[in-house]
């Protein structure tokens, strides 16, 4: 079976790749493009560790084929910081110790950033339900929720 040629945009950069029709976007990001920030925790869309955004929509990249990236704008954790400037979420996560092993962190950051872009003033309940698709086994979510709420407050103040 011959490979498909795909042209897409990832974290603002034009990217082209070849992939097997069966490869997921997650496989492509990790194995073909060297973007290993997105993680495979389950391969079935249940854990959110592979979260990316596609044209601004939060998606599990394990549930999307690489070929479906054609003509889309993909954003991964690697694109959250701008050069050496960390996004406020990233800074707060470190400050609040909102990560222990860190495997879920890329997915949670992508999801949280997406939330704050859509809703800059979420309640605790809204944050919890938005992040319900991102499993964390280490933290019990407490410090993650606090970090997101505090970031939202800080970003509102700054704007």
């Amino acid at each position, binding site marked *: 079976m011959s490979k498909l040629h795909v042209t897409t945009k990832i974290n603002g950069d034009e990217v082209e790749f070849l992939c097997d029709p069966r490869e997921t976007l997650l496989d492509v990001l990790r194995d073909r493009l060297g973007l290993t920030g997105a993680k495979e925790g389950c391969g079935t869309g249940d854990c959110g560790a592979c979260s990316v955004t596609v044209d601004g929509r939060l998606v599990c990249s394990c549930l999307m084929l690489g070929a479906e990236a054609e003509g889309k704008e993909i954003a991964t954790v690697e694109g959250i910081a701008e050069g050496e400037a960390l996004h406020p979420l990233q800074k707060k996560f470190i400050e609040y110790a909102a990560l222990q*092993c860190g495997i879920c962190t890329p997915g949670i950051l992508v999801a949280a950033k997406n939330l704050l872009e859509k809703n800059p003033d979420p309640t605790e309940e809204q944050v919890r339900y938005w992040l319900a698709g991102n499993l964390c*086994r280490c933290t019990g979510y407490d410090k993650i929720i606090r970090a997101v709420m505090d970031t939202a407050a800080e970003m509102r103040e700054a704007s």
Partner: protein
Amino acid sequence: MALDSSKTTGFKYVGTRPDRPDGLDKVTGRARFGADATAPGMLFAAIKRSPHAHARILRIDATKALAMEGVKAVVTRADFAEGLTGENWNILENVMAGDTALYDGHAVAAVAATTALAARDAIKAIEVDYEILPHVTDVDKAMAPDAPVIRAGAADASVPEGLHPNVVRYHESGHGDVEAGFAEADLVIEDHFVTEATHQGYIEPHACLGTLGTDGKGELWCCTQGHWNVQKVCAALLGLETSQLRVTASEIGGGFGGKTAVFIEPVALALSRKANRPVKLVMTRAEVFKATGPTSSTSMDVKIGMKKDGTITAAQGTFRLQGGAFPGAPCEMTAMCAFAPYDLKHVKQVGYDVMANRPKQAAYRAPGSPMAAFAVESVIDELCKKLDLDPIDTRLKNASREGTRASFGPTWPRIGLVETLEAAKAHPHYSAPLEPGQGRGISCGFWFNHGGETSVSLALSEDGTAQIAVGTPDIGGSRASMALMASEVLGIPYEDIRVIIADTASLGYNEISHGSRVTYASGLATIKAAEDAVQKLCARAAAKWGIPEDAVYWEDGFAKPSGPNAGDFAPLPIAEITATMGATGGPISGHFEATPEGAGVSFATHIVDAEVDRETGSTKVVRYTVVQDAGKAVHPTYVEGQFQGGAAQGIGWALNEEYIYGEDGRLQNAGFLDYRIPVASDLPMIDTVIVEVPNPGHPFGVRGVGETSICPPLAAIANAVSAAAGVRMRQLPMRPSRILEALDSAADG
């Protein structure tokens, strides 16, 4: 000058909350976990697994697979060492089946191919003929006379005569005369409890990248809690000399005990040796559930007698644990932890380790202890209710203290149980009013904690900063704690210290990161290595000043003369000594290699409020407070994180998580959809109180904290739910259907 930096107060760095040093890598996606490594020419592996719970393997034919495009090697049991005995044999038998498939998912063969998809396709082409055998998955059924025999002759000398061959180990301990004790009680409650198997649920599946040459030299990258153990096991299973295999630990995406065991690394190395190329092997989530190491499932009987004034007169427990198709269910840990919080004149605990057609169990955060606490603390809760006694006061009345005799034998040294109970009692949560439909549960919990072989090396750089190489993978943020402890001794800023996890070739042996030992043992070793370096720094200063070494002391990063008699020298900062160290005697490093003993035990008390929906049976945890003794919290934020994480796992274990087996002995819910761990919307904020009763065995008083936090939640939540529902829950998890059944049978009377 022998430096002893032991202290329990007056800290400058320990106890502060700086940013962790590896935070930047982890929030940018740069940190490299098990599956994030690549090597030129790398092949991808996949494993063929038995679909049967118990079956003789008659024939494996890989001809078609080997003929497929991109397939470079196939291995079976024949490609591993022969003649292994003891635990090495058990591990090999689990890593790759011999003549019998022992559980649904048991590995029978493996393939390496040029792409992951090709490997996946190739395993479908491997033909295996099975003769299906009767199976058993339930612990009590596995002990019954008619149970299928998993493996004859596996029982050790501890097992009494007359038990089924599936019973492989036995434990009995205690003291006094329980019958006499029960006779003294005003109320005796005896009850039966069941818990299902759960999985540690780490979000990162096992993954490794291995290269092994026919010359016996190998390199292995893997996510593990203990890379020296991986080195040792792989060497045994592949017939290698240990030192010829170098293992590097990646960042690890959760372990909780489940990554202390070896499952796939020997397979990757065997394939690599055959194909003469690096091999990457990553487990799927379904494979993680089916073929790594879940907990035991249990069947427990507990009987406790209490006087009207709340004094426990006697306690007895029988704990049956199945650990999969191999010995190792931690029945003795369950038995010894069960009554540990209580000072008992008459106590007896018995444990059985039973085999069944399930995967080989592995440790999960205080293995064995949470289940024991569920049974014991539920009975104590019931006694308190029936005798109308306050749950915390009753526990205080009977609490283990320094000088009392532990249920498993020794006299307690300084311990912090009473302090956790008192802090819980004083906490606003305990006296907060409950809404209608809500119930409150209390539980204590206990864990031993561990020391273990530890090697640490500290190298000073020419600019006076330090590099510390430890051998314990960072599973909870320990790099920060190591740096804080080294700062305290060296007197240099936390930011001037870099901590790395060294590979097996770069340090002496290190025992696995388990038993909550890292902050304790690697921490102690870091302190001692820093003291070693300080002694050498002082010697250089003494030589420079022409005074004896014992006339120099170290303070806040400076060498100083010890008094006016020693000489009037200006304090010498570390950077000045290190700048010239090459010329004054050579590079300065500190080392410590030892097996620290004296790990301090840890107690906890949890308070939970839960509400039950009587229509749907669903439960909501509305408030949670963890109170736990940490000895000394080196980095309090990460100690809080351990408390919260353990509580969250306990909530999942109590309410949702279980291994569900079908009649065919196959695992029905091998994915995160149907094996449902707590998500962000399930949980409230989790309050934490750090109690500090210093452990005399650590220079700064540290007690391990990682495991104890999972010991109380099962019981605390069961007690809260039982109170909310008005009916005693005796089986975990308390999923909605179980709560509705319990409500129905209570209604029927």
